[in-house]
């Protein structure tokens, strides 16, 4: 948790960083038609960010950040999601989904209860059924091919 953070300053600085990222990647050789609107928007965004930074010194909005619940669980959940996205083309949709979901269910459940091997085996079966259900619906019913990777 970050206590009593100046959210105006953080938002303003994030805005300025985004403004700079877009400003420096604006190709000077681009025609006027493609450049006109983004240039105007970059300037507007920069102006809003500067106003937020100014307000952060005059009348800042302060609050505790990441104050609700466990931040570690958020980090681990986000890590699982990114690992899932990266693994899909290599391990295939089915395998990567079963592994990531089982691991995430196990991790999140630990916050509330003890998880024995027997319970976990039952959960893996549920996950297999769930992923299989979605897999069949998408591939057979909706005819949307899911990535196979080197597995399935």
């Amino acid at each position: 948790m970050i206590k009593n953070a100046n959210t105006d300053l953080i938002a303003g600085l994030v805005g300025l960083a985004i403004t700079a990222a877009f400003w420096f990647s604006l190709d000077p050789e681009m025609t006027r038609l493609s450049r006109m609107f983004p240039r105007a928007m970059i300037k507007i965004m920069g102006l809003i960010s500067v106003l937020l930074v100014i307000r952060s010194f005059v009348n800042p909005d302060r609050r505790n950040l990441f104050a609700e619940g466990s931040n570690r669980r958020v980090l681990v959940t986000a890590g699982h999601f990114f690992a899932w996205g990266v693994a899909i083309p290599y391990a295939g949709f089915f395998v990567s989904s079963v592994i990531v979901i089982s691991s995430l269910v196990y991790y999140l459940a630990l916050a509330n209860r003890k998880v024995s091997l027997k319970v976990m085996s039952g959960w893996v079966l549920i996950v297999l059924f769930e992923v299989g259900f979605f897999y069949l619906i998408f591939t057979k019913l909706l005819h949307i091919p899911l990535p196979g990777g080197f597995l399935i």
Partner: protein
Amino acid sequence: MDILIDAMVQLADPIVIFIVFAGVSAGLFVGAMPGLTATMALAVLLPFTFTMPPLLGLVALGAVYMGAIYGGSFAAILVNTPGTPSSIATAFEGYPLSKQGRALEAISVATVASAVGGIAGVLFLLFLSPPLARLSLKFGPAEYFWVAMLGLTLIASLSEGSVLKGLLGGAFGMMLGTMGVSPIGGETRFTFGMPVMQGGVEMIVALIGLFVLPELYNMAAQGRAALGEVTLSSKERASFWRVTKRVFSMPGNLIRSCTIGEIVAIIPGAGGNIANLVAYNEAKRASKHPERFGTGLIEGLVATESSNNVTVAGSMVPLLTLGIPGAPPDAVILGVMLLHGLRPGIELFTTSGVLTYGFIISMGLAALAMVPVGLLGGRLIYRIIFRTPYYFLVPTIGLATILGTYALRNSVSDVIIMLILGTAGYLLKQVDVNPAPIVLGLILGGIAEIGFVQALLTGMAYKFPVVRLFQNQLSWILIGMVVVSAAWPYFALFRRRRARKKRLQKEQSQ
């Protein structure tokens, strides 16, 4: 008239009826979960509509939307936690009723009021859209640019928290919309050296990431506390006809709440979340016994539930006519319409009239379907939801989210973009920059850019082409509205401060 009849004939298909019931049930299921919004319900269930014909896809999403807004009342009534932001005020009266052992009566009242609101919204949409669509013909590039700006300032001023942060979110969304191929110049912009960004940020990918992922992270953070306890007595009974009579015995309340719902719905960015609070407040002001509000009063429940369901169809008035979503869930509907090659405007009511009117009328069917689904299946759906542990819920919704994003263009890169945007959305939300202005900025950015560049191109003959943006009367009306909407929050703040100062002075003098 012929178009309307053709549309009704298409809807008489049993498959359509089945889809309506399935959609309402699915929406009710997601909407009843505290923290999961109607936008999330639409985003998660979106991939199931990809292979459907356009009418069936839209019917399914309309039904899900209707069911999700109604579903929010279940959690509000039973566990004092609004299932969706549209049911905040429902909890004020619904939960006290539950505590008195009248939970089923409260659910029945919410069901009937929601159905009435849903049908009223459809009627508003049927009668307001065609004239507004004809008016949209008078809109040139400059007017479209100002309409987009108006949408942005309204979103910023109506979104929770600070106006500046709302504007920052909107501007960030507009910048995201400029990535990829320029709509007029045709050049590739802001790819940051990544070829995968040449296709830009797909609107639905951004929608899914920004609306669903932050909620999932919240749910993971809060653990079991994310879902409350069920307190439903199996002995309790509530007569449907008695409840229906009770709801219709307050026509003034119904008419007022539905009208408020429609007015709020037409304003871009404002949806059921604002409508239900305003309608509740007005019902309290108009009541003969305002002091009893908050103790479990049916009047309050009728006001909130009828007004929030009006916004479902009602918020589609600006969407179908100008392409501007009246509420965040409409953005998903817009995405599906564009996916099927349907462009908002007068053509929707002429060339694609059968499809459009079919979609509108199907939302009326969905409103009616809420009654049997809610009264018969609601209890069962609710028990399933609350018996599913959160540690299964988070990965399961994650699975649907990843599948939905991938299925859009069969692209794993879209999944990664969705995850990055969703995580960024969660972090930005911590500093009060909410996802709704970002998404609406992304949608409005395209409209604004085309309007801006085309207006300037037509003004090339002038010394300053920018004057083209200020030449028409309609543009000036829109500019006036932009200025008022941007200045309004500051004016309201000034008035509040002045009133407080006066009160303090009065207290000191006494």
